[in-house]
């Protein structure tokens, strides 16, 4: 496996560990940017509708850039090779939907300061499942364990400090027990969602195929939950109609979320969930940057609060650095291979091919596939939805710092450029 991971001829020789780290950090940037539209929750719309808008945006966005990268022929071929993974991709989408709805209850009842650190423990849950079910970190020494576990704990700790500091001036209604249960539940949902991620990638599935099915499970469940919470299907559509003037923003959040999630999927593939998820959970830093620099949320925070923000950010960065340097050794890679072999044996997969795909050298990745006419129609329709929503958008009464917004958008695009280029050069998006 380590031999294959050096890269196919004509491709970049970047190590898969470094590639995975870049993907996780790019995921953090895009997932953090996706949080910006949630500011509209305070603009008089139901959080369920905001969440629904974001999921609908993610669903539509799936058919824009990802379709451009890999057409539907590739998607159908990949799904035909591993049809059993459709079940896991749907479950992952459902887990996300339930987890996300639980976060709404958590924030309502205990506020972001308590809720966020609790559900941010999802990286520790993911790390546990990675160790238990996929043999991640097995065979690694004390040094690697300390870096990964210490780094993950530092990220959770840093997130806790950040959440306490930034939410110190927000109102938190009672019902603490319910809120804490909801937050812990959300952490378990998100952490467990990474089981299907990892299973798909050690079976040689492409992240673009996984995300496609994921969005179906996600949209279906969110629609069902929103219908239950708003009293039926008709009220959902009525609420969506009422929210039409601001719906573009959660859709845009959904678009950013899809790009971030794709990077997170590649991270889960190339460095595992134990390392990839804590790293991509540094998205809170980017969410904080948007809040502080663009939406001026630092203005109401005391100097102690600001000090806590710097300390929390520093701890998170140190945690991320520790995990980035925890390169899996040969003995751990042997265990990763055992986990992969289990999938190949169980589901009669071509071991040689799966091994190549897992190592980023999908033999079919660079092969030119016939593009279908409907791909253009689907892409135009998806882009059309975004344009239609943008045209009918009314300005929200939220003051922003345009200069910082431009700077952060540019940085976000730079991360996409770097991450995308590295993935293309090393794996051809395999």
């Amino acid at each position, binding site marked *: 496996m380590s031999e294959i991971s050096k890269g196919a001829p004509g491709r970049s020789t970047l190590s898969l560990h470094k590639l995975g780290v870049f993907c996780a950090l790019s995921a953090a940037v895009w997932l953090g940017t996706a949080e910006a539209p949630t500011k509209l929750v305070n603009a008089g719309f139901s959080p369920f509708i905001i969440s629904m808008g974001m999921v609908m945006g993610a669903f539509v966005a799936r058919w824009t850039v990802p379709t451009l990268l890999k057409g539907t022929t590739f998607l159908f071929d990949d799904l035909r090779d591993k*049809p*059993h993974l459709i*079940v*896991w991709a749907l*479950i*992952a989408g*459902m*887990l996300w939907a*339930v*987890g996300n*709805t*639980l976060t709404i*209850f958590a924030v309502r009842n205990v506020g972001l300061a308590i809720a966020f650190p609790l559900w941010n423990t999802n990286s520790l849950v993911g790390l546990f*499942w990675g160790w238990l*079910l996929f043999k991640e970190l097995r065979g690694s020494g004390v040094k690697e364990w300390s870096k990964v576990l210490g780094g993950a704990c530092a990220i959770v700790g840093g997130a806790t400090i950040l959440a306490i500091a930034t939410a110190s001036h927000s109102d938190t209604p009672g019902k603490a027990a*319910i809120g804490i*249960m*909801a937050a812990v*539940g959300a952490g*378990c*949902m998100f952490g*467990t*969602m990474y*089981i*299907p991620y990892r*299973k798909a990638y050690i079976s040689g599935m492409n992240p673009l195929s996984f995300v496609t099915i994921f969005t179906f499970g996600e949209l279906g469940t969110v629609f069902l*939950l929103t219908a*239950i*919470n708003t009293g039926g299907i008709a009220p959902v559509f009525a609420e969506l109609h009422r929210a039409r003037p601001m719906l573009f923003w959660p859709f845009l959040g959904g678009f950013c979320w899809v790009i971030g999630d794709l990077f997170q999927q590649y991270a889960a593939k190339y460095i595992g969930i134990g390392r990839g998820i804590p790293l991509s959970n540094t998205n809170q830093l980017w969410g904080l940057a948007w809040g502080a620099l663009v939406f001026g949320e630092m203005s109401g925070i005391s100097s102690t609060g600001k000090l806590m923000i710097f300390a929390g950010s520093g701890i998170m960065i140190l945690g991320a650095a520790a995990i980035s340097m925890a390169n899996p050794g040969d003995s751990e890679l042997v265990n990763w291979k055992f986990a992969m072999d289990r999938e190949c044996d*169980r*589901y*009669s997969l071509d071991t040689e091919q799966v091994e190549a795909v897992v190592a980023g050298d999908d033999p079919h990745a660079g092969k030119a596939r016939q593009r279908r006419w409907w791909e253009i129609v689907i892409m135009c329709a998806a882009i059309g939805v975004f344009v239609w929503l943008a045209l009918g958008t009314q300005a929200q009464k939220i003051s922003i710092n345009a200069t910082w917004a431009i700077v952060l958008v540019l940085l976000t695009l730079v991360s996409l450029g770097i991450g995308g280029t590295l993935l293309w050069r090393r794996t051809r998006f395999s």
Partner: protein
Amino acid sequence: MKRSTLVCILTDVHLWVPLGVLILGTTLLMTLR
């Protein structure tokens, strides 16, 4: 999908762990409403 594949799916611990968590989470959500 082949019957043997279906049996493999249904007897896979990787299915029942996330499914169990999903059921528990959904139950929690319905209780909290």
